[in-house]
């Protein structure tokens, strides 16, 4: 690895920014096809209702309208599938009700698709939708976990008694119970993990086309994983063979998990285009995005920690209830289980851990992955509990963490994971130093002099990213593999196209992956372009989520480059009349070891495509594909420190400092890594202080717009103090771990621990996210009686 100005480790400016910053990005809504019509999706305004006839005649007669379709019209078409089968404690499979693309018989949440109106213009389609008359009989709704589990609660699905989807567990219950019996101290906590609405800046959109001449369907869609959509839509919903279904996810303006699932609208659009033989386009309005993009989080948990007299953790017991929403979205079922329960060792040596999770159907938007997906929920609970333990035992918050750190690797946790490598002391020390933890009391006094309450909070955490290997996740219920693909095509004159199965929607893959390839092949950074997002161009890949793209997708590309080099050596050996074993490759040159005889990659590439003087039996061309199925997850880790100032008169929390010390493995592009950390931190701070999705008891979405759903803005955030300590991942060749979700996983408990630290002098010892000014003020009122 040359480490030159554009190589691995360099803060190369992003290739993609030229088009993004000059308005030349091409998003799904920018795609226009000749003869296209516009679809408007009529959504349910009721959370739970029986629906009878949907009268569409008036809408069909409205100006510009070509067609109106309802659930009844699509009745023979397959339902929207879910991607992970969870088994309950008793071995029974989860309840998996059907999910028709458009409601049949019943609507189950405000936002459920009822009909599509197709017209000449988007405005005509929307106007005509007002003329649709849906016969409906409102049913009582369950809009929260509490309502869903209440005695005699209305059922979202008749086949799911108690509205339970599954009752799952992980860990050794007997060993954990025993740990509590032998404990000197038991500390317990109740926490709520607030429901969030993802709010990618680009709303979802799709445009579908059917070509009767070839029988091929094409769907442009805002997806993080076009092949996954093709697999689910083709094989499960519409019954189309892969070679007749092309999925293109062009530039995508943010996903955060909400663009992983295969959505009903994608099926409706594609099917409708087939019915009409014309392209149909749909762009979600923001107001509909609030009630149809999958939501995130929404847990209620109770947990207890067993400790010995010195503060050593002996056992952890977690009971969680999770809200899955009205239907099972693609990865809904694994988020609160295999992306959650197995995180509970954290960075600690707790020998016995047990976690049980009961998941419920409710009359709310389906819940699925959202930046961090399961891991923020686990980290929040654990780091709140550790802080509480320190307080109750009178121990120092930092010391209790340090005392329990894992220090020997590989480390087998009691909840399935095996950490390959890390150095938790190093990131802790770095964070304490960088945040001037030791000088905090001085700052607290200075704030107090101004009538403000200052607090500092910490969280030490691990993540599990790049979920794998496929065989293991398959045995746990995954219905897809979790490998990744990469192809490297060296063109005849030496420029390179890289094809990846991952998808970039803000992460900068076009730059990072090009850095790796240009560094490894010794070609100009500008001579490498990365292609992603089009199932007709790229090899089958699983897409982007779970901070997997570099660790899994980047490794696939790395392996493909190695294959290119191996083949190149054979060609070079022939050209240099040497034996393959003697050929070395460095900085773009093949050299006969110990001599000055060499040839360039460019010459080798040209020879590969103009094979006049060529090794016998070797295939022409210089293009290789690799599929990489990792041996293990990767385990980024770190420490986050937050410092807040609370105004006791109003309850306002000002976040005055955030310090991160992270181990994300090898950093390919420090600027992009910083950007990912900043975005993740903003997301995590949003959850901790501002964002909260609220449903009314009748299932109406109360926080359905930016009028009352608070997103973090630049002015709400301090300048982030970001630091790195790197240990390399041991099981991928680049030593990379992942960074996209770090902030949203690590920072929320640090922020809330800081708020509690600020309020402790007033007698406040608990705080629920988001710590809005009203909540903080109320807590102060209550504590002061």
């Amino acid at each position: 690895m040359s480490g030159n100005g554009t190589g691995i480790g360099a803060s190369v400016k992003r290739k993609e920014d030229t088009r993004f910053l000059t308005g030349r990005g091409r998003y799904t809504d920018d795609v226009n096809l000749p003869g296209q019509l516009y679809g408007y999706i009529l959504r349910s305004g009721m959370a739970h209702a029986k629906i009878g006839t949907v009268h569409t005649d008036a809408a069909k007669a409205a100006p510009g309208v070509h067609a109106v379709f309802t659930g009844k019209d699509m009745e023979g078409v397959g339902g929207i599938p879910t991607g992970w089968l969870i088994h309950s404690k008793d071995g029974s499979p989860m309840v998996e009700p059907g999910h028709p693309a458009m409601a049949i018989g019943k609507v189950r949440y405000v936002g459920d698709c009822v009909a599509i109106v197709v017209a000449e213009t988007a405005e005509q389609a929307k106007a005509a939708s007002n003329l649709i008359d849906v016969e409906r009989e409102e049913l009582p709704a369950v809009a929260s976990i509490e309502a869903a589990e209440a005695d005699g609660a209305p059922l979202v699905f008749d086949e799911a008694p108690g509205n339970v989807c599954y009752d799952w567990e992980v860990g050794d219950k007997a060993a954990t119970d025993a740990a509590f019996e032998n404990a000197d101290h038991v500390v317990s906590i109740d926490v709520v993990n607030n429901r969030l609405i993802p709010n990618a800046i680009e709303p979802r959109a799709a445009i579908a086309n059917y070509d009767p001449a070839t029988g091929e369907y094409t769907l442009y869609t805002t997806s993080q994983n076009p092949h996954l959509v093709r697999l689910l839509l083709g094989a499960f919903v519409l019954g189309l063979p892969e070679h007749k279904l092309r999925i293109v996810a062009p530039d995508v303006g943010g996903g955060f998990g909400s663009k992983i699932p295969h959505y009903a609208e994608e099926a409706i659009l594609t099917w409708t285009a087939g019915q009409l033989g014309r392209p149909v386009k749909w762009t979600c309005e923001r107001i509909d995005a609030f009630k149809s993009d999958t939501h995130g989080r929404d847990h209620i948990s109770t947990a207890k920690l067993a400790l010995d007299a010195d503060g050593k953790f002996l056992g952890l017991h977690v009971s969680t209830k999770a809200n899955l929403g009205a239907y099972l979205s693609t990865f809904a079922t694994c988020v609160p289980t295999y992306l959650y329960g197995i995180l509970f060792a954290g960075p600690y040596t707790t020998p016995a851990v047990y976690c049980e999770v009961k998941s419920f159907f409710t009359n709310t938007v389906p819940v699925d992955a959202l930046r961090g997906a399961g891991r923020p929920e686990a980290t929040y609970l654990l780091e709140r509990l550790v802080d509480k333990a320190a307080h109750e035992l009178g121990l120092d918050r930092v010391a209790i963490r340090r005392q329990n750190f894992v220090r020997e690797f590989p480390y087998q946790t009691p909840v399935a994971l095996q950490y390959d490598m890390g150095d938790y002391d190093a990131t802790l020390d770095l964070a304490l130093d960088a945040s001037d933890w030791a000088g905090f009391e001085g700052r607290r006094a200075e704030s107090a002099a101004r009538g403000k309450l200052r607090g500092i909070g910490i969280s030490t955490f691990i993540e599990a990213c790049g979920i794998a290997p496929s065989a293991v996740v398959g045995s746990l219920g995954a219905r897809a593999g979790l490998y990744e693909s990469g192809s490297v095509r060296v063109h005849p004159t030496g420029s390179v196209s890289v094809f990846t199965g991952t998808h970039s929607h803000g992460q900068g893959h076009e730059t990072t992956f090009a850095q790796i390839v240009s560094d490894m092949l010794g070609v100009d950074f500008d001579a490498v372009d990365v292609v992603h997002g089009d199932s007709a161009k790229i090899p089958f890949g699983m897409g982007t989520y779970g901070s997997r793209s570099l660790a899994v997708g980047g490794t696939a590309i790395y392996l493909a480059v190695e294959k290119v080099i191996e083949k190149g050596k054979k060609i070079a050996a022939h050209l240099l009349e040497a034996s393959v074993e003697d050929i070395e490759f460095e900085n773009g040159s093949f050299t006969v070891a110990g001599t000055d005889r060499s040839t360039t990659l460019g010459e080798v590439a040209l020879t590969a495509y103009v094979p006049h003087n060529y090794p016998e039996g070797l295939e022409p061309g210089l293009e290789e594909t690799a599929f990489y199925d990792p041996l293990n997850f990767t385990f980024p880790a770190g420490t986050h420190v937050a410092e807040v100032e609370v105004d006791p008169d109003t309850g306002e929390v000002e976040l005055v400092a955030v310090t991160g010390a992270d181990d994300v493995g090898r950093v390919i592009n420090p600027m992009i890594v910083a950007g990912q950390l900043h975005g993740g931190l903003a997301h995590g701070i949003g959850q901790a202080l501002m964002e909260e999705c609220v449903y009314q008891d009748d299932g109406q979405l109360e926080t359905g717009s930016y009028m009352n759903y608070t997103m973090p803005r630049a002015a709400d955030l301090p300048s982030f103090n970001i630091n790195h300590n790197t240990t390399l991942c041991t099981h991928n060749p680049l030593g990379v771990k992942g960074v996209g979700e770090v902030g949203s996983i690590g920072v929320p408990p640090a922020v809330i621990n800081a708020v509690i630290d600020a309020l402790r002098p007033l007698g406040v010892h608990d705080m629920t996210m988001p710590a809005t000014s009203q909540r903080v003020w109320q807590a102060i009122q209550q504590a002061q009686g």
Partner: protein
Amino acid sequence: MDEAVAALRGGGAKLIAGGQSLLPVMKLNLAAPSDLVSLAGVPGLADIADGGDSVTVGAMCTHAQVAGSTIVQTRIPALAAMADGIGDAQVRNAGTIGGSVAHNDPAADYPAACVALGATIVTDRREIHSDDFFQGMFMTPLEDDEVITAVRFPVASRAAYAKFANPASKYAVAGVMVAQRGDTVRVAVTGASGDGVFRVAAMEEALEACFCGESVAGIAVSSDGMLSDTAAGAEYRAHLVTVMAKRAAEACE
């Protein structure tokens, strides 16, 4: 102006100024005017004039214009500061004083400024004192075809506005303008009540007796009739009114 008024007469037409309140309402299908009559081409509606003991702000002046006006900044700095705290930069560059006053949103800032300063709303046909103008949530005495042309603010001897903003929308959860002219103090509250802007007599008396933040710090307003939403319940709102009144008074000191 005559053309605008004629266009408004006898139909479903509506005036549009900055569109920052009207367009959201139309997008939600809560209003569907047959025609939109823009005031953008009517001359003279975007001027700010210094009248000695008053400042007259044209109806089409944007919030940004009011915030940046040297006249307003020097004569009634509290008004400039209030305008500078409306919504966000886009809203301030498009939204107008006329539109805000005509809309009379219970969470808007201008109603508090108008009532505290004792402003007069000038229309194409009459002058209406603020005390008679803001008649409760979204209610004003304006006729369907009546056009606000300006708002005239008497210059106060001292005034300040303190606002607790909704963290999402940035509208007022509790906004309090305190203003003194001669011996008279007015305390006007917006954002908090379901009936729109209101005055707090007890605070006015306390400040007239002794003008300082501490005078109002202990004066609670009732939470009855207060708005309640996800950002702030009625009790919290009532509490914030007192805190904001104290801060506004302190800012005047």
